[in-house]
């Protein structure tokens, strides 16, 4: 009984972990299913057909390609714009800073259905043709805030002394940014880009409102759901999961490496082994 009480948190937590993983396992398992009817809802037999023929449905491939193009383009734009905003917010004090912060947070506190509906209202009011362009506009819009938050958290721990050292050694502002700042914040930027990419490729709600006839991967699934989702969708979802996991591990590895590199730099300690006069004026100058 005492054992149970002591380990209650661990037992409960493990159950929660199981709960999180079960649907993912179901998706992977059902990509090997050989359903009798059109609906891939109950298990009827093992087959590899839907892995060997993963790319055998042209309209599904088209949707996937559209999603990948959309995600790549919106990630590129959102990452650049978001990183610039993060640099401004962390490093500069300026009039309107609170307002800028507010403008970045509000989209995160807005339900997707409202963002989608508002954008559609804008496009309808101007009779804009819905399609890839409107999707791109929408995806960049909802990704920016996430990029800002991720890059900002990386910038907050940044040692500006490194940049000052580069400037003292005669590097121009542009060279300093390119050779010191950018490499050091790169893991944060890559992490943000990956998040933006994942958000874009997964987005259904906002795309649902602003896609017109253009079909992305989630929109294809939604359309197919009525007539029965092909098993290949499960296969592609499993592949996407695998690719994302590998990309995530890569970013984590990069970040760990960057931290190791940062840890090799001398921190507050003056360069000798024997401590100089504590807090000598100018010893920690910046």
């Amino acid at each position: 009984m005492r054992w149970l009480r002591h380990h209650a948190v661990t037992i409960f937590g493990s159950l929660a972990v199981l709960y999180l993983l079960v649907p993912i396992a179901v998706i992977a398992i059902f990509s090997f299913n050989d359903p009798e009817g059109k609906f891939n809802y109950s298990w009827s037999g093992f087959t590899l057909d839907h892995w060997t023929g993963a790319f055998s449905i042209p309209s599904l491939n088209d949707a996937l390609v559209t999603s990948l193009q959309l995600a790549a383009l919106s990630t590129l734009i959102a990452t650049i714009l978001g990183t610039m905003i993060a640099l401004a917010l962390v490093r500069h004090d300026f009039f309107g800073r609170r307002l800028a912060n507010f403008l970045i947070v509000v989209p995160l506190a807005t339900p997707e259905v409202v963002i989608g509906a508002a954008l559609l209202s804008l496009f309808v009011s101007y009779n804009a043709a819905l399609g890839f362009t409107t999707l791109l506009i929408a995806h960049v819009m909802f990704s920016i805030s996430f990029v800002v938050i991720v890059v900002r958290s990386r910038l907050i721990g940044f040692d500006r002394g490194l940049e000052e050292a580069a400037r003292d050694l005669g590097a121009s502002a542009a060279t300093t940014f390119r050779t010191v700042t950018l490499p050091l914040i790169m893991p944060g930027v890559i992490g943000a880009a990956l998040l933006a990419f994942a958000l874009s490729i997964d987005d259904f709600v906002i795309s649902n409102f602003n896609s017109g006839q253009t079909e992305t991967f989630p929109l294809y699934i939604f359309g197919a759901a009525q007539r029965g989702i092909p098993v290949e969708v499960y296969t592609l979802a499993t592949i996407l999961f695998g690719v994302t996991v590998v990309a995530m591990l890569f970013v984590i590895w990069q970040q760990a490496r960057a931290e190791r590199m940062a840890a090799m730099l001398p921190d507050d300690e003056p360069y000798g082994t024997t401590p100089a006069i504590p807090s000598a004026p100018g010893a920690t100058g910046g």
Partner: protein
Amino acid sequence: MNGESSNPRRRRLIPYALLGPGLIWLLVFFVIPMYFMGELALRSGTLETGFGFSWEFSNFSDALSRYDENFIRSFLYAGIATLIALLIAYPLAYMIAFRAGRWKNALLFVVVAPFFTTYLIRTIAWTTILSDDSFVVETIGSLGLLGGSDRLLATPTAVIAGITYNFLPFMVLPIYASLERIDTRLIEAAKDLYSSAAQAFWRVTLPLSAPGVVAGTLLTFIPAAGDYINVIFLGSSNQSMVGNAIQSLYLSLRDYPTAAALSFMLMAVILALVVIYIRFAGSEALMGDEEEVR
């Protein structure tokens, strides 16, 4: 601050140059669309004749009286799902923060893993798990927990379960982040001063993790209240939420004024709730810590 730029006026303009493009994007494609949605909500007419602007405030009352049940269901389901998510997420976050040891990163990875599969697909996976002849439903049914019926799909339970699952990571991550930041010496100090483990938890750990709980409940409740996917796949028209009404009014019925009025009200109610909640619980939870300029 040495170097940067010798010209102080140019230096003052740097932040605006950095902010400009991104904030203009947000202004044009987030703030201004909100205005257009409000304007659309005040128009009248039909799809054939076109919608003209006419200060049609009755759109709001009409929409509310037609879809009041959807509104109630949205906030009810989202509220219950948020509460269940909190009950699941807190122990999980606690385990990851204090008990996981070297498994910490692996467990955090598991928490975000659902995000690596498509939202629609993982909701559809629940359709399989909760389908009538599935292992789960038969087990629950044989325990007599289904109340005479033999199905779980197309019930509020299924919809709430789906919403809880889909937004659970939003609850776990902020709670974990705030638990992680707690100085464990404070908890030890409480125990040194003869508090029991339970007392130390209720009076030290829980209050210190409150910002995470506030952020988590907001991040879970807001998307949950606007969701319409879970109803489509796990529910039926009897569970229709306000998101479902907005979606079909905009995209199938093309009754733009009513649809805009509904989304406007959803946004207004959520903003009001967020403001009240933040007044009550402190603002740093949502805005992030106002860090110093470096």
